[in-house]
């Protein structure tokens, strides 16, 4: 807990990271056991997740406490901004890998399979079109249309981008009740999005016969929307935490990076969705 004369805050030793490491180890090991049908997997995984939650609550709790007791100065604030920006950039690259897979299959591998010698010798009769489940998957599926629920979800997420911006503006103007209400609205929109997405998955499995195993289309559809949905969920949890903090009177008009970081993250999730909507659902 030493604050440098230069004004830089240095945290004291912390036991949170090691909990995080233990949690990840248990989660990984438990997951492996589970996927391979060995005993004890689920239990190990659950313990890992619990430790992880404990760690997250504790670690963020510590940071929030430090922030509220005024230990962070301008420079720390800038550090947080850099840190959050590059974290989001790394997330963008993670999604890029899956978008890359999608483009590769649509533009290259599916046409190749229906082309020249490959088609003639290995996959007679296969024609390349998108959505495709590939030459050797007999089960038919119906692709997910863009203009039903997905379009509604797009509207929901875009609106939530607006509401959180209004909330942010209110925070800067110190209009606390507007802030709280618009935060609530944003969270509600986020939860609605998740619910609609869950319904859509059920629809896909039950009515469209569209599953993770439906070849190239199914794999990219579920992995991209799935990881996105996971990020929305995490984002919503973060929003809830921030909302509770708002209700407790945290954040000042001139200093509220915790809020801004979550807002950035929310916008990132929003932008990824636009990419998804265009390339997965629409085109």
């Amino acid at each position: 807990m030493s604050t440098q004369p230069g004004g830089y805050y240095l945290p004291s030793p912390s036991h949170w990271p090691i909990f995080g490491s233990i949690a990840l180890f248990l989660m990984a090991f438990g997951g492996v056991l589970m996927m391979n049908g060995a005993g004890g997997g689920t239990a190990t995984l659950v313990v890992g997740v619990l430790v992880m939650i404990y760690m997250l609550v504790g670690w963020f709790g510590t940071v929030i406490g430090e922030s509220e007791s005024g230990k962070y100065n301008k420079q720390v604030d800038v550090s947080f901004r850099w840190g959050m920006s590059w974290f989001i950039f790394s997330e963008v690259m993670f999604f890029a890998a899956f978008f890359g897979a999608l483009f590769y299959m649509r533009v290259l591998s599916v046409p190749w399979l229906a082309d020249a010698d490959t088609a003639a010798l290995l996959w007679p009769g296969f024609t390349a079109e998108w959505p495709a489940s590939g030459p050797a998957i007999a089960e038919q599926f119906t692709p997910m249309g863009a203009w039903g629920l997905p379009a509604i979800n797009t509207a929901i997420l875009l609106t939530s981008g607006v509401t959180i911006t209004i909330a942010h503006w209110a925070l800067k103007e110190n209009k606390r009740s507007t802030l709280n209400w618009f935060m609530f609205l944003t969270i509600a929109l986020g939860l609605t999005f998740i619910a609609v997405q869950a319904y859509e998955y059920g629809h896909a499995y039950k009515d469209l016969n569209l599953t993770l195993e439906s070849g190239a289309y199914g794999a990219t559809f579920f992995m991209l929307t799935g990881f996105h949905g996971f990020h929305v969920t995490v984002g919503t949890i973060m929003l809830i935490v921030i909302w509770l903090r708002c209700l407790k009177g945290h954040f000042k008009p001139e200093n509220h990076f915790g809020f801004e970081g979550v807002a950035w993250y929310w916008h990132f999730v929003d932008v990824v969705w636009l990419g998804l909507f265009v390339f997965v659902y629409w085109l």
Partner: protein
Amino acid sequence: MEAVHEHDHSHDHPTGLMRWVTTTNHKDIGTMYLWFSFAMFMVGGVMALIIRTELFQPGLQVVQPEFFNQMTTLHGLIMVFGAIMPAFVGFANWQIPMMIGAPDMAFPRMNNWSFWLLPPAGTLLVLSMFVPGGSAGVGWTMYAPLTVQQGMGMDLVIFAVHILGMSSIMGSINIVTTILNLRAPGMTMMKMPLFVWTWLITAYLLIAAMPVLAGAVTMTLTDRHFGTHFFNAAGGGDPVLFQHIFWFFGHPEVYIIAIPAFGVISQVIPAFSRKPLFGYASMVYATASIAILSFLVWAHHMYTVGMPVEAQLYYMFATMLIAVPTGVKVFNWVATMWKGSMTFETPMLFAIGFLFLFTLGGFTGLVLALTPVDVQLHDTYYVVAHFHYVMVAGALFSAFAGVYFWLPKWIGKMYDETLGKWHFWLSIIFFNLTFFVQHFLGLAGMPRRIPDYSLQFADFNMISSIGAFGFGLSQLLFLYILIKAIRSGEKAPEKPWDGADTLEWTHLPTPAPYHSFETPPTVK
């Protein structure tokens, strides 16, 4: 202030093991990175020796083929992710705050986590050898669809890679933020020591590349267990897709290994030439160009997969282009030595060894860049020789140079100069004995990743194996030198190297105090 500190030390700072588990100090964390890296180097090295023992002569003598494949895989993974990368992150932790006049890293707690993710990941890797069916026998490149055939060892490796990736990303975010935000007043970007620059650029490479690797292994995992068809033609996927994603990470990865090594060399050569680094600005631009180019050349690892010829041509030209900025760096280092006043202590010897052998490895890289030639040499021992020149004589030698160079600053004691020189000469001789002959093997057509070979390859393999054992034993000498220095080394002078002129030498006592710059220095 002092009183506050006393208070801190007596109450908040655990001692013993818990000091290391909970520390938020960049020096403690740097130390842990370096020791972890050395331990992993030993583990990976022993695996290399198992490989070389099996290859000592034709026939199967010591291990079964599938175990051999697992050794190759784990050797590659452990050396790259467990030994070399953590070693340079260790340097970054120790040096960057000292070199830019900062009190510590920007996120000290996250820094702790970045390190402490490594032991679980390493454990998962090692553990994979002991589960039914053994570890993954797929090569460090983990090409689909062989990965689908593997047992649960493969899943452990996949999760280990995930965790290693998280560690690297967090470490990099920390480094970027520290460099951009915590520089002392007056330390403009173009005044930063080159080591700091190289790490800034490397950190960007890591942040952009590691998530892509995470994506690749995640797809492997779902193909294995959840019925997706990313890498399976039956469902419209393509095994080659994995290779594209992997190498989009993998090629930048090799520069992630090389660029911090360039940084260390750029500190050591001027110090022992007693002359400022030649072409500082062009060094910065060259490093940045290498980094940018490194994202544009990945498919030179895939010349034989049957890409369209236009793509092959593009990748060939782009790959060749990397020789230009790398050449600029080599020329600048030689120009730094030119008309200097050189002395040849161990760090300088390793730096010169680096320069000489890395360039050799770079040249064989250029040979491989030529697609028609690579079609002959791809997946042969020529490639193995190429990358051990750039990674062992390159990155590893640079790490040795860095350790000898900064050890006095870190522990306040000197290493044994005579033994250090022995370490260098033994290493360089046995290194070449091990890997130079592998060029011949590759040219003659010996494939890599095979546990047994035809009789024409026998002699060179024997030489290579002898060299490997010599090289390995020489590294025990390194361990001895370190322990000796730590336990009974002579006290280091305040500034053991005449030519060293960065902040840690000019503004901090030797050994460096636990907290670097309590007040930021002013840089003119």
